[in-house]
């Protein structure tokens, strides 16, 4: 008995040493591989930021367009005489559609998320979640086309005017950002810190009291994160908006008049302008503004996350 036992022990010992060695190499190949990926990713991000920034800054440094003209000028005529590069109409357009889209989409998303997590968790998750995931899978050009064929004529018939404009743009956008906001809100709601909901019920609160006075106030930062990420998506969306907003480089008098956003102007003109020309550089400056806005959105999300932890 004894010698066999000793042999088995040695065998096991040998095997575990082999395993240890193999784990060691596994560990390090894995670590090296992931580090390389991270370095590559960082390099890509840095080079993108550098590229956009260098092109965007050229408008002001090389071509001598003043910052004041770019950010506060209302006249955009890059091919006119004299040329002018006022991007204010596009900046206002971008903010207008983004804020309006968030105003329309957020309450709907909150209701959908509450329905999924608080009211009928089972069937809600089974039916609503796939439906919402489906929404996020539809390409934006389809949204744009639906907007152009359904929403624009509808608005024209109901309100008169062109139908095209900020209202059409924000309606299309609100549907597009619905999945983003809903899924983030639903995640936040289902990860509610343990016991809060139960304590509320235990104190005799009704479901609506619990939702309105406990769940929503506690999760407010997380819910806002969803809205801000939705807004970031809306701010950067180009194709669908470009099709329904009309793209006139002016600040519109009404929601039903042709307007532009930063992204719509970029997609509309970038290919037609020669690299290095003032017009092209001015478009890159707008891209830089978009990039900076994205940074701000990310920053806001980070700040909210920090508040959420406390």
């Amino acid at each position, binding site marked *: 008995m004894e010698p066999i036992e000793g042999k088995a022990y040695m065998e096991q010992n040998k095997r575990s040493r082999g395993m240890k060695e193999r784990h060691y190499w596994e560990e*390090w190949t894995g670590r090296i591989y992931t580090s390389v990926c991270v370095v590559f990713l960082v390099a890509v991000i840095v080079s993108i930021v550098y590229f956009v920034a260098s092109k965007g800054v050229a408008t002001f440094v090389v071509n001598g367009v003043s910052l004041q003209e770019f950010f506060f000028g209302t006249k955009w005529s890059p091919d006119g005489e004299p040329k002018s590069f006022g991007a204010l109409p596009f900046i206002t357009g971008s903010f207008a559609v983004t804020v309006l889209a968030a105003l329309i989409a957020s309450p709907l998303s909150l209701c959908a998320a509450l329905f999924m997590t608080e009211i009928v968790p089972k069937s809600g998750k089974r039916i609503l979640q796939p439906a919402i995931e489906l929404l996020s899978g539809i390409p934006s050009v389809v949204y744009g086309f639906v907007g152009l064929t359904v929403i624009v004529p509808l608005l024209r018939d109901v309100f008169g005017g062109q139908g095209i404009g900020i209202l059409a743009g924000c309606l299309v956008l609100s549907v597009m950002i619905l999945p983003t906001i809903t899924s983030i809100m639903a995640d936040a709601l289902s990860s509610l810190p343990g016991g809060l909901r139960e304590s509320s019920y235990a104190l005799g609160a009704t479901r609506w009291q619990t939702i309105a006075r406990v769940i929503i106030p506690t999760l407010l930062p997380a819910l806002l994160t969803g809205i801000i990420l939705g807004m970031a998506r809306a701010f950067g969306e180009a194709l669908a908006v470009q099709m329904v907003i009309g793209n006139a480089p*002016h600040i519109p008098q009404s929601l039903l008049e042709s307007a532009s956003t930063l992204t719509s102007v970029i997609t509309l003109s970038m290919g037609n302008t020669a690299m290095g020309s003032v017009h092209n550089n001015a478009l890159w400056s707008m891209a830089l503004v978009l990039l900076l806005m994205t940074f701000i959105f990310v920053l806001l999300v980070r700040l909210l996350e920090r508040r959420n932890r406390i």
Partner: protein
Amino acid sequence: MLKKWPFILMTLTMVFALAACGSANNAAPQGDAATGTDNKAATELTGNILAVGSTALQPLVEQAGQKFMAVDKYKGIAVQVQGGGSGTGLTQVSGGQADIGNSDVFAKEKLESGADELVDHQVAVVAMSAVANPKVGVADLKKDQLVQIFTGKITNWKQVGGADQKIVIVNRPSSSGTRATFEKYALGQKTEDLPGSIQEDSSGTVKKLIAETPGAIGYLALSYIDNTVTALKYDGVEANVENVEQGKYPVWAYEHMYTKGEPKEHVKAFLDYILSDEIQKSDVVDLGYIPVSGMQVKRDADGNITK
């Protein structure tokens, strides 16, 4: 001691990764050079052709490219066609990234420098017409009426003898080649973007908007015009192929395929193929362009017309 190993390994891998990126970049031009030398084996042409630019010209070049590669003589040549717009095409051909730059406008109208180095190959003609929503009740506009509409001085169709309907301008972005052609040859002047005007770059969207929006006016290449919109006569002249060829109808432009310097042999073979009767008499006409061979007038970059 052992703990430092991973860091050393990591740094080494990073260096290798970066070096690999570097050498990959260097490798690309060498590859091109290699195909370049292959061409000198004159008997059978081989090589890659990259044509980039104008989306208006893209369908023709794509279709011609497919036919070209199917020809036995040229099966060693690969033609690749990309869109991206005239500006992109001209920038890339003058920067050497593309072999051919497709453009709707003359290079010197778009490029600030380097246009002199480019050689122009005009492969087709595209004519445009002002089009309006069918319900506006106007079918013929004089030049100065068009100018006043597109500069915002006439704002109601009533003022040009049509229905009492506000005019909605469906324009192209100011950088567009189609707009440049329309402004230069139909209006004779540049126009500003008016408040309330609509801008779209895709001809399909422009047509849809003009067909559906009450009081809309815009302009389209002849190949896009169908019975959902009304093509307006220009000073009484109808926009059709014959009138363009005979020089009676002025709103047209060449489609250009630019090469940097004289084209290499395999690129020249492709350009010659597009200009051959095989493409000019069939594909060019089928796709709604006008063959350059049929034109009885010529026009230079400054707009001077010669018979």
